[in-house]
């Protein structure tokens, strides 16, 4: 026992020594220290931060990383509430209402760095003319397809209309090729795109009407859910998708076992890494009921400034640098993101060509971001009910009715 405790004591003193020597490096006293709670990974942010510090030698950036989404929201919330929030942090769909209503984000409207940012990205993190986040990129999810597998049935690319798309799936299936897979652990991209196209055709009033009570989910969603569910009703896609996550779907696609999948730009990057020889390309999701092809997607979280920060000028300098062609070029190179500022043309994978313009213009839609309240609760309900529909337990109409009930009770 005494020997045991001596070991413990030795280990403790060693650890103390290490920790103390480690602390010696920190804390630059002169110049400004800008604190940042980053959302992207350290690997992505470090080159940007280094370039910024080079351009502004008087400002030192101290970055903390927290993985999105839930962990980030929690870490930020705890700090905001306790008055220890960083100078710069991210405003996202999940926390924007609370941050704005609590007065925890600075209004950036009129700042020079917003000049090149499209209206869509500004509005996503804005309210009543104020803009609270600098959102520099957007994402859009479409149909990623394997050109070789499509060529086996003589198709060049997925068609523009849903009916033709389903016919293509049937053809692929007859040829012994799995036509399409999607992960159903989240809102299906196909449905989001159908809704987005419909919303655009009504002049973006769809959600206003649902949330004001002028319309219902049942009225708006049912026909689109029915169309979407034909994938499963007509037995074109396996109902096992309710048990799949995005990583498994991507692996099936990268291994050439499925012809088409729902995908965002990030999937293109990782499919390239996993299967460099695969010929792939992405197109928007086919239009339904005479609607236009559309994309599921949203504006990326925006950089926000803490109004209680003692470093607002340095924080603005940081945002300006990030939005400048110089800063955004470094950031874009790390992630391959579809950036939206008008003075920088992001070099992107050619497979994305058919969708880039729409994404940059903000022609994308995601229900849980467009919804006006109870977003999380409705999203969880929608995903679960859609899974039940795919399993054949309930009808599309019942999915929409469940959403109406959920909205009424929350």
């Amino acid at each position, binding site marked *: 026992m005494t020997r045991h405790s001596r070991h413990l004591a030795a280990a403790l003193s060693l650890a103390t020594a290490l920790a103390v020597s480690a602390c010696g490096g920190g804390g630059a006293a002169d110049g400004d220290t800008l604190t940042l709670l980053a959302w992207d990974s350290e690997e992505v942010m470090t080159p940007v931060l280094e370039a910024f510090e080079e351009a502004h030698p008087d400002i030192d950036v101290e970055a903390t990383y927290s993985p999105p989404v839930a962990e980030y929201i929690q870490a930020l919330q705890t700090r905001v*509430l306790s008055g220890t929030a960083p100078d710069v942090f991210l405003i996202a769909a999940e926390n924007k209402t609370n941050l704005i209503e609590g007065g925890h984000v600075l209004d950036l409207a009129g700042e020079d760095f917003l000049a090149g940012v499209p209206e869509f990205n500004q509005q996503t993190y804005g309210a009543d003319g104020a803009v609270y986040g600098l959102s520099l990129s957007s994402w859009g999810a479409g149909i990623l397809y394997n050109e070789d597998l499509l060529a086996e049935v003589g198709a060049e690319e997925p068609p523009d209309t849903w009916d033709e798309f389903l016919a293509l799936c049937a053809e692929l299936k007859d040829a012994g090729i799995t036509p399409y897979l999607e992960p159903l652990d*989240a809102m299906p991209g196909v449905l989001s795109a159908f809704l987005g196209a419909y919303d655009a055709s009504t002049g973006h009033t769809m959600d206003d009407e649902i949330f004001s009570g002028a319309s219902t989910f049942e009225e708006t969603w049912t026909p689109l859910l029915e169309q979407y569910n034909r994938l499963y009703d007509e037995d074109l896609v396996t109902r*096992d998708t309710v048990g799949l*996550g995005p990583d498994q779907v991507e692996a099936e696609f990268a291994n050439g076992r499925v012809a088409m999948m729902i995908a965002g730009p990030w999937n293109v990057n990782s499919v390239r890494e996993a299967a460099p020889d695969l010929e792939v390309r992405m197109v928007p999701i086919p239009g339904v009921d005479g609607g236009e092809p559309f994309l599921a997607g949203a504006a990326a979280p925006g950089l926000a400034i803490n109004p209680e920060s003692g470093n607002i000028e340095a924080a603005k300098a940081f945002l300006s640098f990030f939005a400048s062609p110089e800063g955004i070029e470094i950031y874009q190179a790390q992630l391959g993101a579809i950036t939206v500022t008008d003075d920088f043309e992001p070099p992107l994978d050619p497979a994305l060509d058919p969708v880039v313009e729409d994404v940059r213009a903000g022609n994308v839609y995601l229900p849980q971001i467009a919804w006006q309240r109870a977003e999380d609760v409705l999203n*969880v*309900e929608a995903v679960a009910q859609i899974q039940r529909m795919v*399993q054949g337990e309930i009808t599309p109409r019942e999915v929409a009715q469940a959403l109406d009930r959920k909205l009424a009770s929350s």
Partner: protein
Amino acid sequence: MTVATEAPPPSGSGTATRPRAAGRRTGPSGGWREAAAHQLFLVPVAAVFIVLFVIPLGQTFYWSLTDFTGYSDDFAFVGLENYRTILSDPSMTAGLTFTLLFAVGTTVLTTVIAIPLAVALNQRLYGRNLARSLFFFPAIPSMAVLGLVWGYILSPLGSGVLNSVLDSTLGLGPVPWLSDSTLAKFSVIMVGVWGGAGWHAVLYLAYLQSIPHEYYEVATIDGASGRQRFFHITLPLLMPAMVISQFLLMTNGLKVFDLPYTLTNGGPGFATQTITQSIIVSGVGQGQYGIASALAVLFTIAVAALAFSQLLISRRIERRVL
């Protein structure tokens, strides 16, 4: 059996009277001073409990009576409104069935596996260190990585690891491990047991050390078989360990969140949704911290009630057995 009656007196009342009786022998003043010294041993734990649990829980209870958003200290007192909201919302109980199933399922299965495992790992075996480590470590890597790995293993597609093994050995078609409601519940519970059995076996392993070797020697001389020794010596003397292990399994099972969340995200449908997931989604995700606090308070009370009744029952059984 004679051996069982020779067991040391472990029950609380028996041990409690002994030191007190001895204290009287040293005279009343010495007894008082000694009692104070003994009480001193409980001060650190009391401090920890009050600072890290009682005060924060009190704060949470206070917030549960307000419309606190979790983002601003500007909030109003709303009385029992939050509790009323919760109790009138049917979806809050959505996760109830699976949570109970998971807690009971993992408690029973883990115990049934962990005890024989501990006994086996207590024997002199070839490669015992390796085996102990392999059984112990499953639960250690983060849920994020385990979710990914199990997602591949249990993938309902024909290319899933388990499905391709079943196909090549038994010629079975793809089994919808995670895409069928019943199988998904089963799969999540199995992964939970996989993660916990080795950990609890190590716990039992420690308690096996407190069984004096003489008991086994006497029993062997009396002609008891291995099975008799297990059921008449090992199992009764492991009762205190079982009480603890099952209490931990039950409370952790009722509080489970990570595992179903990463493996199935509560699906398919609502099949593997848990109560904690409902709390986190409807409370924290929506910035309704007051409601979330009220849920946490209700949840604490419910888990406490369940876990304590389980504890009382198993303590009673323990007394009867010993």
